[in-house]
């Protein structure tokens, strides 16, 4: 979308023109949904959060500074609404399965290319508190201090949550890899890596179906 077209759309949104709102929504749907999906448990929740984000965008679009990139402003709103959505759960500490994760051999990451769905399924399996910190640190690029401020937790908790998130993700990657290898070994070479996806639990399948 060209800069001029974007400004026209924004102008339409300021005038509360429904057509412009829909066009803007459609144009940035994938980008916004991509962010919300990373923070959400599933697609439905992500859609709900994203709509709350767009609602903020449409109601506060007159505060948008047109000299700054729109995508950055939109992305920040989507991140914020996602954090808000899970804020109540973010302070909770999770101890489940950690022993297992800690004792895990720190092997090399598999060189097999994991696709978007695999990665998303993994990140969505993380507890909210880990997932949010991982998103903010590893993907958005915030520091632990910034994350601490955003989530109202200490930077130590942020570091700890990041560490646990990484451990869990590594574990999931290795599991997925081993499942894939076993499947290939047992079933023969006709099977593609999609077998690995099938092994991910029913919950994830349900989500992927909707994407």
């Amino acid at each position: 979308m060209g800069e001029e077209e974007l400004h026209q759309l924004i102008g339409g949104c300021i005038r509360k023109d429904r057509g412009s709102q829909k066009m803007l929504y459609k144009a940035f749907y994938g980008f916004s949904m991509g962010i919300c999906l990373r923070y959400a448990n599933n697609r439905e929740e992500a859609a709900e959060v994203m709509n709350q984000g767009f609602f903020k965008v449409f109601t506060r679009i007159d505060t948008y500074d047109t000299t700054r990139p729109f995508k950055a402003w939109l992305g920040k709103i989507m991140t914020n609404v996602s954090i808000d959505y899970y804020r109540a759960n973010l302070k909770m500490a999770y101890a489940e399965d950690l022993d297992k994760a800690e004792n895990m051999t720190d092997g090399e990451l598999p060189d097999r290319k994991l696709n978007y769905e695999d990665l998303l399924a993994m990140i969505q399996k993380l507890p909210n508190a880990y997932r949010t910190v991982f998103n903010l640190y590893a993907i958005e690029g915030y520091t632990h201090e910034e994350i601490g401020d955003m989530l109202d937790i200490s930077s130590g908790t942020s570091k700890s949550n990041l560490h646990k998130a990484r451990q869990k993700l590594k574990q999931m990657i290795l599991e997925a890899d081993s499942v894939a290898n076993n499947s290939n070994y047992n079933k023969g070479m006709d099977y593609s890596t999609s077998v690995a996806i099938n092994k991910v639990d029913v919950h994830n399948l349900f989500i992927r179906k909707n994407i």
Partner: protein
Amino acid sequence: MDTEKDENLDKLFKKGLEDPVSEPAFREADWDAMEQMLDEGKKRRSGIIYLLPIISGVAAILLIFLGYFFFKTDQTKPEKKNQVAATNSTKSEAIDKAKNNTGTNGEPARQVADSGKQQTKSAQYAATGPALKSRTESGKTFFPLSSGKVRPSTGNLNPGVNNKQDLADNAAKNNANGKTSLGTADNNVNQKNDVLANNSKTVTGDKTTPITTDGKTSLGTADGKANQKGDVLAGNTTKPGDKTTPADGKTQLGTADANAGQKTIAVNPTKQSTRPAINRNPGSRPIFALGVIASSDFNGVNSAFQQTKIGGNFGATFSVTFAKKWTISTGAQYDIKPYLTNFDNYHTAYKFPTNPTSVQADCRMLDIPLNVNYQVYRQRANSITIGTGLSSYFMLREDYQFNYGNGDSGYGGSTPNGPSHYTVINRNRNILSVLNIDATYTHQINSKFGVTVQPYTKVPLSDVGASQVRLQSTGVAFGINWNINASSKPK
């Protein structure tokens, strides 16, 4: 080493998840939900505007009642005035009474006679000159008039004297009998002043007679006009400048003072006559009361009080006791009503992927009741009333939380069930859809204030809110009542 591996992991996810190629495709259903949210947003804003007429309606009802209350109290006042005026207007009777009565034959007659005496005194004082003395002696009735009249005449005593004569002359001419007694003359003047304060037309008619027919001296005429003008001013019907045009400078001075005098006169008789009249008719007016109320109640659906939740309410009430034991009450109350119900009682067009087992709701609403109460018991400061009526619910916010029975709350859990919650804002109104039944115990602390304890129940006559449930509430309210017109009672 570890750091490097961590960074690799981070990069793996960052690259994989931020790949624009993998961005999810647009789904029309999501936009539909968005559109609905935008429409609701509009409604939410306009909802407040929609609520305004309702709130102002309640305020208008309150104002009408209050207006009625003040109107009623005003009505009683003219009644009292009329009593005096009527006594005065039946001139011959009043005069006869004033003449024949020595002050023992009833209040109005005595009053006239008394005022006659006072005026006689003032006339005497005015005629003899020591007007200032009369002012210091008594501030009642005609003294301001006499003093006012004397003030401009300090340079020239004649107008002051003439004024008095003229008053007497006018009075004598108005009187068909042409009685010469001072009491009669003053009575007429008194009548004139009383009536003039209320009705300028009558006054003008009264006044013109002596002015036109008498052909008095210029001073007398001027004085008559001065009086007339003062009267008209009291009635606020015409500009004083018009009337004073023919009068000379002296008369204008006299006129100004006459105004002051007339006004004072117009007020005093009313004050004098108010007290006895109220004493005669106590308690015939409606009693108005304002109150604040706070309550806590149990809320359940379909009489299923095993699933009750405790809510709270607070608000203001307004009541009118229109008959001996009957009271109408209304008000506005903010209700916080949480409740839990089985999903069977929850009605929605939305089809859940998996039906929730139960629904937990938290409703915020405005409750406008209209009740009739009957007093069944009263002893000293304690009374018990029973009441019934209808309430209208204006739903301000409804939050529904869906429970799925397997320990999960909607999509937030580990297995996908369905939406976890649903919020509706300012959408539903249920006019006169709830039956109120209550009993109120009131303990009157003093004539103005009382405390109330009110057990009540609210029975739904129709389904309420977005979920169309039969929401029932039972609780106890505590409040304070203030009787607005208790202060105007005679002491």
